[in-house]
């Protein structure tokens, strides 16, 4: 497999020049190919023509707004994952965005780390293998059917919520998972707590899966979130 094959191709549809340029630059720095469209019509044309892994769509665009662009794309059978960026961050706006065919929704202002983590997850969702029944990271194994978690020869006892937390982390092993993503996907809450409530859950989980083992698997990624992976990059 060559590098070109695995390189992620993004289309950013955003009318604010400065934030668009910032995104293109930031994505190129992490090794992605990022194209740019500055209005809804141009974005639709490019999205239909190009083979992109993920579309990043601003909700309010000139000529054609983001939601109608996604609708048009989906009507034509284009299933490229879409991440909606919007200044409208409220719960009902989010629901509206997801209903119109978006796959994820990120309110502005966002952190690039959050955006990057979500794009990784979206692209993996598309190309990744079918849902497996067993997740493995190093010597940690999670059986989704029997709800058994083992590390090496030890069987670990997890609370149901800890199991779901670990399941989500392992499903996205090797990817950064942000606190917001955990709160949304494991707890199904879409507000941001004022406290480090997720960190406490993570540290509890960590004490169960990593404590007493030589190689830690659950890593904290500063300024972004968490990642479960075997070994150090």
């Amino acid at each position: 497999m060559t590098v070109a094959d695995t390189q992620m191709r993004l289309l950013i549809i955003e009318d604010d020049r400065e934030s668009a340029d910032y995104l293109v630059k930031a994505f190129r720095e992490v090794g992605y190919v990022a194209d740019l469209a500055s209005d809804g019509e141009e974005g639709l044309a490019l999205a239909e023509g190009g083979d992109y892994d993920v579309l990043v769509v601003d909700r309010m665009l000139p000529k054609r707004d983001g939601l109608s662009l996604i609708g048009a794309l989906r009507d034509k059978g284009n299933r490229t994952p879409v991440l909606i960026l919007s200044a409208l961050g409220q719960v009902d706006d989010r629901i509206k965005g997801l209903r119109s065919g978006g796959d994820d929704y990120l309110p502005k202002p966002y952190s690039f780390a959050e955006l990057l983590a979500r794009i990784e997850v979206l692209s993996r969702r598309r190309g990744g293998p079918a849902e497996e029944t067993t997740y493995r990271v190093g010597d940690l194994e999670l059986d989704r059917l029997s709800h058994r978690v083992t590390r090496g020869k030890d069987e670990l006892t997890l609370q149901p919520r800890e199991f779901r937390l670990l399941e989500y982390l392992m499903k996205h092993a090797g990817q950064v998972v942000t606190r917001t993503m955990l709160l949304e996907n494991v707890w199904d809450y879409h507000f941001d707590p004022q406290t480090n409530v997720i960190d406490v859950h993570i540290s509890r989980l960590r004490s169960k899966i990593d404590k007493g083992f030589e190689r830690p698997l659950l890593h904290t990624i500063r300024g972004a979130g968490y990642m479960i992976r075997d070994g150090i990059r």
Partner: protein
Amino acid sequence: MTAFGKLVRTTAFRLTLVYLFLFALFAASLLGYFAWNTRRLITEQITTTVNAETGEISDIFGRRGLRGLVLTIENRALRPGANLYLVTTPAGQAIAGNVGSLAPGVMATTGWSETAYRRLDEQDTADHHALVRVTELSSGFRLLIGRDLEERRRLFGIVAKAAQWSVLIVVVLGLGGGVFVARRVLRRIDAMTGTTRRIMAGDLSGRLPVGRSGDELDRLAENLNAMLERIEALMMGLKEVSDNIAHDLKTPLTRLRNRAEEALARSGTEAEYRSALERTIEESDGLIRTFNALLMIARAESGQARGNMDDFDAADVAQGIHELYEPLAEDSGMTLHVKARSAPLHGNRELISQALANLVENAIKYGKPVSAAQPLSAGATADANQREILIEARRDGDQVLLSVTDHGPGIPVADRKHAVERFVRLEASRTQAGSGLGLSLASAVATLHGGDLRLDDARPGLIATLAIPTPSGARDGLAAQTHDVPQKAA
């Protein structure tokens, strides 16, 4: 517009005019009817009298001849207020009676007629009018008997004059009353308009004058005053909020700026720059959170979030939040318990969860027992009890109560109302981190669902309760409908 023009344009004055016209018409027709009937009555009376006398005199002529006739006539003509009498020969010459002159041709035709006449004994030349009957006696003599119509004319005159005066009085009084009422109304409306203008110009403390009569204008003024009261309260709230926003957003912004400036001014190592930048990001994340919370509150308060309502169990929410915060509470040296009984609810699940989460976060942050207040002899168990936080969900009548109880210092009664306001951090908690929006959001969410946020004393500690009315009315309605169906079918 002139003052008179304004007066004439008032509803009160226009109504007066309509009534005035109707009353005048009524008065005129009443008097007209009266006059016409009186006239008919008088005429009838005259006819009856004349007919009777004609019969009588014809009779006398038949029995006693011409001589008897003339004697009787002369006799009767002399009585005071006598009728009119005239007897003529077949040649047309008058031989008896009290009539001096008649309109020509009256004696030529028999039957009833109205005529001008003059009495024999009268000196004036003015003609009078009379209703007369001419009868042909045997052998060509003719007899005229009649009665003066002056009475009828005078009565008619009186009635006509009465009509004129009454219509005049109605008009004058009506117009006067109309002007009076209209001016009264106008004065009060003008006073109201003046006040409203002042209020529109920015003086929100102005209130409409309210009289003591409790009439419709007073009630209107009272309602408008209540509305103004509310608007003023809202404006005050808004002003306070913007002042607080300015203060509470400017402070972190200033910190942010200072830090960036400081890092820039000091030529430091890469690590130093890094940490300065990281702190900058942290600070701006805090700002973003504050903004989000503010937007959320604004949305909840304006009722926009009503779209996402569904049915769920408050017990699930309590359990979910308990599950999420239990480890955090434990890390802070507290224990978080939940006591949830099924309490079905209709609302925005996300917002209610967030409101409850805010209450729990507050309890974890501020609900630690005041150590000074603890007697030294109190054992570890007492302390453990004090460090408990309880989340409770239950149904109480037609309300769902979601409460969080801690055993911290609580909030003094005087501060409770204040505590719910935006950005308020009570003095005790100033040193703690937080946006000061937690309780405001919880309160706004409760209001959105038609309920309220209550703060009570847990002796010691705080019980914060989201009281949300259940849609029992709606459900009872539904139940009634389902009961109705079989009845209708039967």
